[in-house]
């Protein structure tokens, strides 16, 4: 072993550090410490001349350990490690002492700051002899990408990736891609027709030779790690041969079960047991609803669908298939669920007719919807007054604390659509705060005020059918405090639209678990960093886009989908990926096979080898938390870069002064 030759560099950071810490004093003191062969100070260590100091000392003085006392390692550790590396020193033999964020900037007194800087520096001087040279771990990367969820986010991400020539598997659990956006009529604030902008993308995705569409399918199991995921996908039986089915819909005409509430129409319209969810569906293939089909339920049926089907595509014997895929990256775009307002009983959803959710209104106002785009009540008449209630199930500790972000704007859109179809109808928007934060949104809000919509600042207290005046007779009444007036109003309405919040999908938590990342407190997928890595998850190689991360509108969703695609591409476009070497490793000579590390590993990166009777770390799956090290009763797993000896030495160094 060559002797330890430590070099200390103390950065002034202009006056950021030097203004508080007596740099000369600390540098002179450091020079006296064991193993330190050179101790220097410099105005800006991160500048090129600063970095050159390090390189020169490594090359000329044979320095083999370096500590840079400067800013937070988050800031410049990569910079200095690269400099060391350029000079031929293993980058992991360089440590940073954070004397700016943790010392000069937070300490009032100069003497105290100087003393603290010494202690912080000394911890690293003590640590360095225990540092080992580490090499980044390289693993091969599978260039294919899986996108989970076929809404606008998933479609967009798949198309972007396919354009770079990558193979994409697009998994969608419904029979057709399109997601929620396919149900919408118009989009705010531009009032583009949702179908007009979405369907071309859907069909492009359907035809794209690089995209393999796995509709009516769900991911069952995810194994592997960054660059090398193994995914099991269950392709549910459609009972229709999708290779031969042409989507002609003749079977739909023939089916005798005709009154199944259509999921796509939010139950407002009906479909048949064999169905295509909507005319622009991609893939345009029929699916048999096994719970409704008489034949599949074992009841008598003459099977007119089979007769009607020219290509003989119907196959009652079809079974689910479980397929295996190998991909290098995964994009999660599993979307949201509309919050079901049934528990909010005071709004009488499900109790009183004409109290509807926003998604139901989307279908009612949609030209291809169950009412042909006529905004009508259950009895077919046009409403004379409509109240739109904001923040239903949002911003509420009893239900969901978060703001759902899109409800204010889609509510304004509804007002506009009602005014457009029924100019004489009174529209009331009952809101707490009007959040019109996007491009063109505030202008849209003003436009709606101008169109004569009544804005009432107050959260609706209840929706009732009890009439206390002739005007209220036979109508719904919304009780609300107009907080700007300080009076309680009874607003008679024929239709009440509940602007329900966006909720995480019911299975979000279990899905996240399957893929090995977490959910935030509000139930949406947890991003790696809320500011700087909003499309990554803690699992390397798995990205998120769209409303599964948090409620967002279409432009934000599309932008995020692009970012996720770029993130995935940046990964799979390389033949290999480097993984941080601060991972755990297990010496099989010492492991007793007790399974404790296997039990605590949050990323299932430790597996038990039955044959050898020992635990083994899957290096590429290990994220370097070190939980196994602390949990093992005999310290067998060790984490490179965070060895016990290194931590002990830091403690000794910090406490030595």
């Amino acid at each position, binding site marked *: 072993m060559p002797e330890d030759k430590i070099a200390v560099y103390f950065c002034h950071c202009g006056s950021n550090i030097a203004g508080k810490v007596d740099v000369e004093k600390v540098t002179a003191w450091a020079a006296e410490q064991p193993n330190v062969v050179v101790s220097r100070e410099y105005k800006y260590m991160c500048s090129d001349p600063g970095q050159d100091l390090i390189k020169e000392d490594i090359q000329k003085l044979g320095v083999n350990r370096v500590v840079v006392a400067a800013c937070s390692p988050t800031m410049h550790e990569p910079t200095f490690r690269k400099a060391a590396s350029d000079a031929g020193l293993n980058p992991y033999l360089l440590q940073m002492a954070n004397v700016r964020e943790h010392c000069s900037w937070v300490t009032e007194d100069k003497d105290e700051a100087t003393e603290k800087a010494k202690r912080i520096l000394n911890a690293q001087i003590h640590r360095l002899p225990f540092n080992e040279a580490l090499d980044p771990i390289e693993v091969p990367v599978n260039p294919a990408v899986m996108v989970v969820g076929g809404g606008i986010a998933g479609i967009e991400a798949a198309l972007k990736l396919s354009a770079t020539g990558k193979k994409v598997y697009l998994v969608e659990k419904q029979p057709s891609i399109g997601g929620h956006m396919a149900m919408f009529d118009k989009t705010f604030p531009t009032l583009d027709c949702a179908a007009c902008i979405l369907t071309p993308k859907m069909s492009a995705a359907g035809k794209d030779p690089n995209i393999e569409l796995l509709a009516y399918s769900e991911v069952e199991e995810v194994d592997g790690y960054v660059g090398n995921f193994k995914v099991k996908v269950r392709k549910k039986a459609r009972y229709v041969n999708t290779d031969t089915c042409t989507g002609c819909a003749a079977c739909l005409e023939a089916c005798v079960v005709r009154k199944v509430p259509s999921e796509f129409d939010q139950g407002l319209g009906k479909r048949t047991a064999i169905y295509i969810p909507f005319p622009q569906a991609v893939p345009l293939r029929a699916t048999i609803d096994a719970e409704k089909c008489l034949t599949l339920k074992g009841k008598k049926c003459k099977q007119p669908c089979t007769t009607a089907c020219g290509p003989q595509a119907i196959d009652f014997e079809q079974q689910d298939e479980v397929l295996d895929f190998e991909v290098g990256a995964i994009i999660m775009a599993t979307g949201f669920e509309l919050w079901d307002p049934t528990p909010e009983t*005071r709004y009488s959803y499900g109790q009183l007719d004409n109290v509807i959710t926003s998604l139901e209104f989307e279908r009612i106002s949609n030209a291809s919807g169950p009412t042909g785009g006529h905004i009508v009540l259950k009895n077919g008449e046009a409403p004379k007054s409509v109240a739109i209630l904001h*923040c239903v199930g949002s*911003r*509420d*500790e*009893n239900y969901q604390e978060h703001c759902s972000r899109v409800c204010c704007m889609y509510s304004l859109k509804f007002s506009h659509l009602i005014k457009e179809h029924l100019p004489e109808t009174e529209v009331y928007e009952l809101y*707490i*705060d009007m959040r019109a934060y996007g491009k063109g949104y505030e202008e849209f809000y003003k436009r709606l005020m101008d169109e004569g919509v009544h804005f009432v*600042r*107050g*959260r*609706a*207290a*209840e929706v009732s059918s009890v009439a206390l005046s002739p005007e209220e007779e036979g109508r719904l009444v919304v*009780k*609300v*405090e*107009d*907080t700007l007036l*300080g*009076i*309680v109003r009874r607003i008679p309405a024929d239709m009440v639209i509940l602007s329900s919040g966006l909720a995480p999908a019911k299975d979000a938590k279990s899905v996240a678990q399957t893929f090995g990342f977490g959910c935030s407190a509000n139930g949406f997928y947890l991003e790696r960093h809320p500011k700087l890595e909003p499309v990554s998850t803690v699992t390397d190689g798995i990205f998120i886009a769209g409303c599964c991360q948090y409620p967002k509108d279409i432009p934000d969703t599309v932008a995020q989908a692009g970012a996720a695609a770029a993130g995935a591409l940046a990964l799979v476009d390389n033949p290999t990926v480097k993984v941080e070497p601060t991972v755990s490793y297990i010496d099989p000579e010492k492991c007793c096979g007790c399974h404790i590390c296997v039990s605590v590993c949050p990323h299932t990166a430790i597996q038990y080898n039955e044959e050898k009777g020992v635990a083994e770390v899957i290096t590429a799956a290990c994220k370097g938390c070190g939980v196994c090290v602390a949990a093992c009763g005999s310290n067998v797993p060790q984490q490179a870069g965070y060895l016990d000896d290194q931590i002990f030495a830091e403690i000794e160094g910090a406490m030595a002064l």
Partner: protein
Amino acid sequence: MTELATTPQAKALHEQFCRDVMSMPGGEKIKICQQCGTCTGSCPTSYLMDWGPREIIAAFRAGMIDRVVKSNTIWLCTSCYYCTVRCPAGIKITDLMYELKRMAIKYDLVPKDSKNPAMTKIFVDSVHRHGRNHEVELMTRFMLAKDRGLPFKYWQVGLKLFAAGRLPLAAKNIRGRDELDKISAYLDAQEAKSQ
């Protein structure tokens, strides 16, 4: 209108109120009221209030304690708990109303024309005398104290109930009625000790 809050006494009172309210279970939630109006909108009697519960919370937060206690709001609360179960911020508004009532009585800030404190007092008095509330006594004493016109309004109702045997004149006394006095005396002593 000069706000009482500008005087030193008012400031001291406000601080006292803040301490009391913040120390009630869940009291600190008042800070996160988003002024949505669900409470006032849900309140069956808010139309009679000079300030609704929402405005009371706003006034409280603004330090306008006189507005809080001099309004009739707290005396119109029927304890129906609609506001409490609906509040999206989880504020126990009914409990807050009780707390404010107590403080108004404690610091003698009750509006002169309010009948409620008298009702409360007679009720408590009746319970302490008998151990239970004697409805006939309660009504009679209340009429005598606050609303002598009441018998004229209600003689028909009263007569019917009386005829049905639903207004017994004699009060029942429980055996342990002195216990209630002792309980109050104990709590009085504890309160005095803590101050």
